[in-house]
């Protein structure tokens, strides 16, 4: 399945809802007037885009319609697409693999961090980049086993310690091991933490300190990726803000974009934070984590012009 097909099929339900809504209001109003814009706003909110983005997008259409006097369906759709693309950007994760790159996989509970870490490792390992996984989620029962299972499938070594051990010590071990083995990409799976828990957030800071200190000698570059569950509502925005406060986020990974997700939350978070989406989880298979592509995403969300 091509990447486009994956985005397409993942967002098919949302797209169907958006298309139906769009056509329904187009048919019932005939012209794109104020009531139409209200309905359009509603459709966008229903796709989890949040009130702010929905209002921004509809305001832009209102403005352009007023200025240019065009009210046909293609024009409105085109405007919508342009504006969505102005929010999202395609910024692939292409670090310099001459050095060691350390990727922290962060996020609240249940967003799919471990799975994402496993899939990322598999994908880069296959591209010929020497990859390693570290199980720094020492809190959730069986998280270590889960990551080890992923490591086996991907053929990537997994550094781990026992349940309840200090996650920073796992990071330390992994850094030593990565340096010794000449690893180019170390992916660290961390415990899910609700962003309003200060203790867990300070534990995260400690892991960062260890990685930065140990990585200094080899010029390691640290990347922080926040994993967001696409079925999450507006709290995703608050999650991104909170994580970005304690650490600088370099990218967002949106998971579970297939099936029951609405997807609009991607717009809400990127609009609010201006942090690029780097990967999208489009299915449960090991190959279903794809580099995020804004154009494909928007095309999958909106009806055909």
């Amino acid at each position, binding site marked *: 399945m091509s990447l486009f097909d994956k985005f397409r099929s993942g967002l098919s339900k949302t797209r169907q809802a958006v298309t139906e809504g769009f056509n329904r209001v187009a048919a019932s109003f005939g012209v794109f007037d104020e009531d139409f814009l209200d309905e359009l706003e*509603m459709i966008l*909110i*229903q*796709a*989890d885009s*949040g*009130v*702010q983005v929905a209002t921004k997008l509809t305001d832009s259409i209102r403005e352009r319609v007023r200025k240019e006097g065009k009210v046909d369906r293609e024009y409105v759709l085109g405007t919508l697409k342009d504006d969505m693309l102005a929010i999202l950007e395609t910024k692939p994760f292409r670090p310099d693999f001459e050095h060691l790159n350390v990727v922290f996989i962060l996020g*609240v*509970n*249940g*967003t*799919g961090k471990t799975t994402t870490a496993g899939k990322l490792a598999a994908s880069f390992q296959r591209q010929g980049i020497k990859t390693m996984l570290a199980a720094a989620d020492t*809190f*959730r*029962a*069986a*998280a270590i*086993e*889960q990551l080890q*299972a*992923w490591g086996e499938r991907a053929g990537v070594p997994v550094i781990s310690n026992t*349940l309840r051990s200090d996650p920073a010590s796992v990071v330390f071990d992994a850094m030593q091991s990565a340096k010794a083995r000449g690893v180019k990409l170390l992916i660290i799976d961390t415990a899910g933490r*609700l*962003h*309003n*828990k200060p203790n867990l957030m300070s534990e995260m800071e400690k892991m960062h300190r260890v990685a930065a200190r140990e990585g200094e000698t080899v010029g390691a570059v640290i990347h922080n990726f926040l994993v967001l*569950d696409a*079925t*999450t*509502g*507006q*709290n*995703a*925005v*608050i999650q991104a803000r909170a994580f970005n406060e304690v650490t600088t986020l370099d990218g967002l990974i949106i998971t*579970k974009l*297939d*099936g*029951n*997700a*609405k997807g609009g*939350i991607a717009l809400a978070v990127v609009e609010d934070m201006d942090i690029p989406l780097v990967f999208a989880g489009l*299915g*449960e298979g090991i190959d279903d984590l794809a580099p995020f592509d804004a154009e494909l995403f928007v095309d999958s969300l909106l009806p055909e012009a």
Partner: protein
Amino acid sequence: MAVFQGLSEKLQAITDRMRGKSRITESDLKEMMREIRLALLEADVHYQVVKDLTKEISEKSAGTEVMQSITPGQQIVKIVHDSLTEILGGSESKLAVSPKGFTVYMLYGLQGAGKTTTAAKLANYLKDQGKKPILTSVDVHRPAAADQLNILAKSIDVPCYINKEEKRAEVIAKEAMDRGRYLLADTLIVDTAGRMTIDEEMMTELKAIASAVKPDEKLLIVDAMIGQEAVNIALEFDREIGLDGFIMTKLDGDARGGAALSIRRITGKPIKLVGMGEKIDQLEVFHPERMASRILGMGDVLTLVEKASRQIDEEKAQKTLERLQKNRFTLQDMLEQLEQVRDMGSIQDMVSMLPGAGGKLKDAEVDEKEFDRLAAIIRSMTIRERENHKILNASRRRRIAAGSGTSIQDVNKLIRQYEQTQKIMKQFSGFGKKGGKRGLFSQFGL
């Protein structure tokens, strides 16, 4: 979110502009409804539910005498809050128990909702009630899911049935039931496989499990952070598998949990329990008003409004307000305030409930016993002294100290505090007049 925390203030700002008008106009109401609509949407309440609700609230608000009240914004918030509470509450939320003596609960939901943790928490909850639960994981898909449940089960000393060789979930479920009966357990909790999406395969599997063990309760586990899709998920499960109630998880986060309202309203199914943290004992009974407050993002202020509306004598309040505006705040007023505030409960709590005012009042050092002592001192004063503290000479102060069982230092301190309070009151009444941030006592409806 900014949009959110300000609902109360925004409504108040709208109504402030209407001061002096005898009736609420349609456009005023429309403006207020828009704020309510946005607030609910930001809380991830489903759009259709928001639409219906704002219509109902609008009708209720128009019919009542909200504008007669001193704080109509707060009154409207109260109407909204009551409506939400009504929807969320109502029907029985106790877990069903099988009359045959062996109860089966089946937990299902999307991946990452917290099913496995909730299964273990539920076992712990039942164990605390003197039940003998047994757990089983029938997740044949996710690596290590069964291990996770097993580890949790061990930590609470509850048996857990696992069969890693078996790939048919319904067979494991049936075996677990047999094992449970053999172990003389009385409740089986079945943790099913979570999926990223609701698909044919998942439904078929859940149906097979349900028909194998005939659950007394089929419980949907919902993440408090879920967005607009919550309703569709609940409806689909209800249609395909049957849904008896739901458990909302991760309420220890800061998500508003608007899905609770949407699912309750659209499926009519009750919320049975809520997960309040990662620890195994953090599964709690559901409280409709708390959830309503949470969705509105203004829990404490609402409690305060309710407490205040119960405790405060409107007439007295009005009188105080008038005096305040004339900058006449006497020791008698202070006594009345002390008594009224004291009636509402812990002063420290009250102060902490006030958004914005809390920090300001910290300087005034609020202390419970101190308040009681202050009241005693004022009660030992004559009416004239209460009206004008300037006449309090050394001899009067000695008498008051003796009368209230305090020292002259205490009396002096009270007078200083009174002067300090007077200053604060002036500040607050000043705020009120400028139409800016409303002060401490306006929160009380004063």
